[in-house]
């Protein structure tokens, strides 16, 4: 449908929602084309395009939310959203209110240099075939799965408060899974990159050779690595693992809808870590969670979650900003038009310190150096888990043999107090966070040392 026609329809629908009783009426529209290329062991079982077009209508009426999504009938969805809100409002004791913000009007352009939509499928298929060829140069590799995805199109947000934002939406994503085998011993490793600011140029930074080299090393480590001892050990975590700890252990607890039910609720303004520890959710160059506005139209701001060891700020949408009496900072995010926005992280990072890796490991008699992750999960009681797909034994101050895959866990509010050193380096990783809905995120930081409070899972 033509954009001008859509906009007219949306404005009319917003007014209709107001007329029906909506105090706040928000309509999000998407018209997005996604390309999917999936190569599994030499065969493109999937060469697909997905065209998504539809509306998400969210209405706040009499202190309760109604949300309706459709790709069939916008007017009907508006009626449903208002009716749903009114129906819910009959049972509401404490009315939901929104923090007042200045309406935003903007057109957000994509900063991508080489838009994936301008790359033909011939080149895309050739790229993944080359990557597969590179991966299979190592005889350990028995099977590969490469998923490439890109998207382009328009996202619109219109509210009855006067917000009107149009995004020139783009993303690119590549996920690789390799399975290795030597005799009866198997191993597996994953790699993912993605961009919303960087397009096809991402592959200049992450060449097929770089990705293959990293995955070959991880497969080799897993197949030839030593089993891990289970229990509490000194851990030095590399930037990728540090990033996942930032995301899982602390980031989720600093999402205001979870903060309210977590130990962080009563810790805001208090010292929760040594004063050399700083952590943020912020715009990072190349960050997968970067944006100018969130899905409520609030400008995205850096959130200084931990500053000099003090729990300072949390991530908010307009509803929780009102509850907490804090200014919203642009963290409402919806996976797509068919989901309402909820509070999400963007790029969650520990900030740099002044130690070197060598200084961190020199006094460790026995411990582990954890480098790369596979999955992670948080819980309200601040227990966190991070799957590890690359790690090494530290013995007498030296990094020794690789370990088989494992997990680490801890209670975040205890582990934080025990951070002993923060590195002077910095790197980020790309991921997809699941909190009922998917969201593109980055996480990262410097090397960090946890002399205690981290438990390692192992068979020994």
């Amino acid at each position, binding site marked *: 449908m033509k954009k001008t026609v859509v906009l007219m329809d949306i404005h009319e629908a917003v007014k209709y929602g107001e007329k029906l009783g909506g105090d706040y009426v928000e309509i999000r529209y998407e018209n997005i084309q996604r390309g999917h290329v999936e190569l599994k062991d030499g065969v493109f*079982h999937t060469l697909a395009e997905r*065209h998504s077009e539809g509306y998400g209508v969210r209405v706040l009426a009499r202190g309760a939310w109604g949300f*309706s999504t459709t790709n069939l009938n916008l007017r009907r969805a508006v009626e449903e959203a208002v009716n749903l809100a009114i129906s819910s409002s009959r049972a509401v004791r404490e009315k939901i209110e929104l923090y007042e913000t200045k309406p935003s009007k903007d057109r957000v352009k994509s900063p991508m240099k080489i838009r994936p939509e301008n790359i033909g499928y011939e080149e895309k298929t050739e790229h993944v075939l080359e990557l597969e060829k590179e991966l299979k140069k190592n005889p350990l590799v028995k099977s590969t799965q490469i998923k490439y995805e890109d998207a382009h199109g328009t996202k619109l947000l219109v509210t009855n408060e006067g917000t009107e934002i149009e995004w020139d939406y783009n993303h690119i994503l590549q996920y690789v899974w390799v399975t290795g085998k030597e005799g009866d011993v198997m191993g597996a490793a994953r790699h993912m990159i993605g961009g919303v600011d960087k397009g096809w140029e991402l592959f200049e930074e992450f060449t097929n050779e770089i990705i293959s080299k990293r995955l070959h090393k991880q497969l080799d480590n897993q197949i030839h690595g030593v089993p891990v001892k289970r229990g509490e050990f000194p851990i030095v975590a590399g930037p990728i693992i540090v990033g996942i700890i930032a995301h899982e252990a602390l980031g989720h607890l600093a999402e205001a809808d979870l903060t309210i*039910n977590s130990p962080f609720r009563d810790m805001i303004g208090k010292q929760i870590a040594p004063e050399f520890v700083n952590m943020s959710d912020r715009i990072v160059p190349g960050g997968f969670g970067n944006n100018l506005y969130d899905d409520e139209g609030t400008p995205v701001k850096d959130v200084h979650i931990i500053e000099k060891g003090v729990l300072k700020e949390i991530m908010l949408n307009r509803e929780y900003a009102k509850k907490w009496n804090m200014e919203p900072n642009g963290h409402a995010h919806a996976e797509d038009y068919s989901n309402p926005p909820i509070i999400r992280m963007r790029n969650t990072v520990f900030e740099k310190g002044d130690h070197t890796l060598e200084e961190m490991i020199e006094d460790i008699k026995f411990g582990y150096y954890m480098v790369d992750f596979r999955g992670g999960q948080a819980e309200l009681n601040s227990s966190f888990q991070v799957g590890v797909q690359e790690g090494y034994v530290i013995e007498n101050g030296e990094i020794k043999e690789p370990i088989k895959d494992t997990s680490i866990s801890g209670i975040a509010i205890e582990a934080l107090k025990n951070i002993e050193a923060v590195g002077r380096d910095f790197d980020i990783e790309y991921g997809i966070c699941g909190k009922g809905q998917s969201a593109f995120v980055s996480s990262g930081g410097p090397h960090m040392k946890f002399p205690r409070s981290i438990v390692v899972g192992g068979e020994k």
Partner: protein
Amino acid sequence: MNVIRYGEKFFDELEVQTLHRKEISAKAELNQISSSTSSNLGMSVIRGVKNGKIGISIIDSTEEEKIKRGIERAAKLAMVNKKDEKWPGLPEPGNYHKKDERTGEMGEEDYFVNLITLALKDISERKKDAMVVGAEAGSIYVKTQIVNSNGIDVSQEDSVSMFVLVLMARHGESVTPSIFDLDVTKNPKIDTTKVIDSCLTKLEHAKKVKKADLKEAPVIMEPFALGEILQYALLPAFNGERKVKGTSILGDKLGEKVMDEKIKMIDDPFHEKSVAKLIADDEGVPTRKNTIIEKGVFKGFLWNHYWGKIAGEESTGNGMRSFRTGAMGIGAINLVIEEGKRKVEDIIGDVKNGYIVSSFQGAHSSNPDTGTVAAVANPAFVIEDGKITGSTVFMLSGNVYDLMNSVGEISNDAKPVYMISRGMYPHTLFENVKIAPVTR
């Protein structure tokens, strides 16, 4: 169907799957109703093949004209694809099981708002310190139709209603883990009482935090926890594609004992306790009962049409499509673990020192190729002298096959698990499980 005739201009073979999904639900957070939501979405996936080259198009519509445009896009993609030399063709029509005749009712928004309001009142009257982190009650209706150029034309409807409850409480400076339970029913008349009872009982135990002192212990997994571990660490090994590629750890184990003999595992789309019974998979192949494990012996892989033909087998009716990418994979329709003889309460009663786990953190980071598991049991509860005495957090580590070989007992109360994949899982006791305490 008109679209198939239209597509024959572009393709040698064509398959169109349409999906219409309606949902309605009411949600609560922070001890009160927060929102109601509805969705009404149509979607179609077109998979066409020309000279062994595949093109796929996915559109957010079921309208014929839009499907035709999708066919044209899929045809353009097929032209740039490489030929799949092994392409075995699309499936042929088969004989379907009798359709599930139970009507799929959906509740109205007021009904679910009332249901949650009453549940909230019940919770607040019984436990003043219980916080409803989240609750949701609602119905989902899905209608699919699969047609292909070989004559398959099958449609089916499926509807379920659900009540999900997540509670927490504060104790001192700490909080409990989120305590979760759900019930899934065929119609919206959901009895919320048993979910509330279960959550409130666990919440009380969760406030008494203890350290997991044992290095090896008997561990009972509740249905959801068991479902999480099996989904990520075990089920991939049943996938026929992995058998063909030599990446299933069970590749050469057909007919061999791979688990404790108490285990019988069937993919049963028509199980009597199932709330939704599917007669066709996502390729339109009739679903069937497939025995995977019997008395601990591995009986067979699951296949979709493509990998079944490549392996010289038939599809077992386990073609499963990603509606996000259109990719056709292999998955269990309704994995059932056969029940044992005793109630879980009796099994707990016989445990001197051990644990019972409601859910795992990080089950998804298990290694699907090797079966390695290192997941955090949280919430987990301490059993002392046959009674639950408190809660704890611990890391469970090892290999899923070692776990499945150490099954002590299976309960007689299998429960539908819908949140990860569909299945019927009982409580299962594992002996000598390796653990490391996380709670200090």
